[in-house]
């Protein structure tokens, strides 16, 4: 078991190793041991590995940790091939509908060719379509073998009335999961946005059936997803580093001005400022001083803000074990409660949690 200070220094190692592999220098076997596990549990092993390889440093990593990095690269390559195939199947199912289909998150970063997407490992594919197109899209997917994985009437109603997505669809033969969204926030959420504006601004890509959100909308969606979804933050640090990658792609004042205006226009200033706050503090992403001042001023104040800050910092820092101690479990609970509070008005929340607690899953 590494000493507390070894663990402490490795906490910084993961973020710096992903963003600047050269800075890792020579690590002891014990440091590699912690770093590889932190990277795996933070879902960043692929990014770390691809980054080291791109700098020509992979070969100089000691054989033990290098094997894990090479296996992660193999996983990344498999994922890229599987993603290509899965997207071609979705395209085949939906191309006849004449409905714009927008890819979100991981798959979108890959298709848009964002630099950090190279080693990014992710699970499901997320797409977004206009709400009025939803029934046709669902029917077309079902014709090609995607089925609803939630059969329970209550779950169906939960998704269809209150959520911003259909119940997750699973392909009957390949077992892959597809999330079909019509917005990026539940209609019941406290935070309101304008999915129609997101869809209007979505970009087409050369030779690609799918669209992706505009660059500033990608930042706003990622920030909203990270700080205003259900509160489970298993991939929190990975998502924060996605935001870092997107923001580093900004070229100057004009991009920042557009981002801030857009955040105000579609009601997503709170997630944006929260993201900027943590990007500055935990990652060291370059953010212009005046924007940062704005973000700091908008961070929740008082006891509530302090507790939230404690919980978020806990969840966004890497860990080398999933065997979470009491503080970490407490912080996760806090964030899940906050996430649900953000997601639904109190009467719905009480009904929903009561139902989940007392009605046995069939």
């Amino acid at each position, binding site marked *: *078991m590494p000493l507390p200070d070894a663990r402490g220094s490795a906490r910084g190692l993961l973020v710096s190793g992903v963003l600047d592999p050269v800075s890792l220098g020579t690590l002891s*076997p*014990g440091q*590699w*041991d912690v770093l*590889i*596990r932190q990277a*795996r*549990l933070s879902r960043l092993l692929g990014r770390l590995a691809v980054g080291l390889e791109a700098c020509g440093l992979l070969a100089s990593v*000691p*054989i*033990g*940790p290098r*094997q*894990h990095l*090479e*296996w992660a690269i*193999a*996983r990344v390559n*498999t994922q890229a*091939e599987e993603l290509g195939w899965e997207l071609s199947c979705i395209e085949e199912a939906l191309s006849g509908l004449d409905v714009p289909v927008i890819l979100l998150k991981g798959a979108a970063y890959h298709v848009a060719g964002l630099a950090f997407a190279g080693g990014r490992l992710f699970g499901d594919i997320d797409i977004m379509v206009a709400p009025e197109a939803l029934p046709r899209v669902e029917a077309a997917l079902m014709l090609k073998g995607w089925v609803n994985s939630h059969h329970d009437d209550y779950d169906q109603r939960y998704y269809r009335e209150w959520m911003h997505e259909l119940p997750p669809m699973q392909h009957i033969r390949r077992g892959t999961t597809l999330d079909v969204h019509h917005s990026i926030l539940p209609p019941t959420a406290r935070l309101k946005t304008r999915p129609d504006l997101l869809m209007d601004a979505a970009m087409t890509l050369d030779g690609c059936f799918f669209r992706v959100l505009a660059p500033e909308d990608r930042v706003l969606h990622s920030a909203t997803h990270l700080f205003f979804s259900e509160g489970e933050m298993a991939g929190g640090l990975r998502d924060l580093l996605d935001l870092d990658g997107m923001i580093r792609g900004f070229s100057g004042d004009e991009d920042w001005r557009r981002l801030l205006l857009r955040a105000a226009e579609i009601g997503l200033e709170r997630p944006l400022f929260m993201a900027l706050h943590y990007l500055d503090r935990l990652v060291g992403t370059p953010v212009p001083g005046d924007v940062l001042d704005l973000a700091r001023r908008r961070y929740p104040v008082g006891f509530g803000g302090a507790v939230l800050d404690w919980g978020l910092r806990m969840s966004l820092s890497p860990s*080398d*074990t*999933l*065997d*979470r101690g009491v503080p970490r479990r407490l912080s996760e609970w806090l964030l899940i409660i906050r996430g649900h509070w953000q997601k639904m008005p109190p009467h719905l929340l009480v009904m929903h949690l009561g139902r989940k607690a007392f009605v046995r899953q069939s």
Partner: protein
Amino acid sequence: MVEVGAIPARDFRALVAGAGAIIHFGRFSFRLSSPVEHLADEVHRMYRHHPVSLEGFADFHVEVRPPRNLRRWFGRQLEFHVDGSSSFFPLPHAQAFPLLEWGLNWCVHDAVKDCLILHAAVVEKDGKALLIPAPPGSGKSTLVAGLVHHGWRLLSDELAPLALDALSIEGLARPISLKNDSIDLVKRLTGEDAFSGTVRDTVKGSVALMRPPRESVLAVRRPAAPVAVIFPKFTRGARPVHRGVGQGAAFALLMESAFNFSALRRQGFEALADLVERCGCHEIGYGSLDEGMRLVEDIHAAA
């Protein structure tokens, strides 16, 4: 590195209960932490010849311990944890060692992506290795234990890491897992010393593990070239039979037992195709261990 057996059992128990001990098998290693004394003792006996280190890098961080939730009050149970989380059902306290072995098998085939991991045993003699895949109950491990007792080198009993060029198989030299009647059968042959305690009422019936010979453990980093694939079938009282298996049929059977086949995609497909093209593929049926070993020796001699 020192061998596990060089550490007194009491000290080893304390290590495993404390900071953990890193045990090396082939090119892999696991750091074991566990408060369960009888598990530490079994590991100490069954991994006696394996190298052990106390700090540095370990591939798999595993822990076998009682659940922390309410389950701990219902019967004495243990969970297998990797990187601090458990994705297996807890098992009764007595099954600690089989639980560790099954968990380690999962660790290896889930992680490794630079070779095709087949569910098969591998033994070697005179530089020629035999790959013995088989569903549970076919008598594979019994046959392997018999061969190893007669001087064959054990590369692996459960997982065969086949290089992607299909030219070599790596050794792991972990304990051989014997079930039910074969436990006493092999004990009569080899004596009790190399055996773990017998655990009854597991999902696979009674299970006991057999320590690999020291020579096999010392030679574990030397891969071996596969020359034949043998599908064994033990049937009590059956007459010995030997048939060739077509390449296509052998491919299909091996594909079912290849854990990371789909993750390796084209590479996995080609490795397996190269293997069945290069090796003779055989099916043997036999009614006694001696007959089974004789058939294997014949195939080995002709390969």
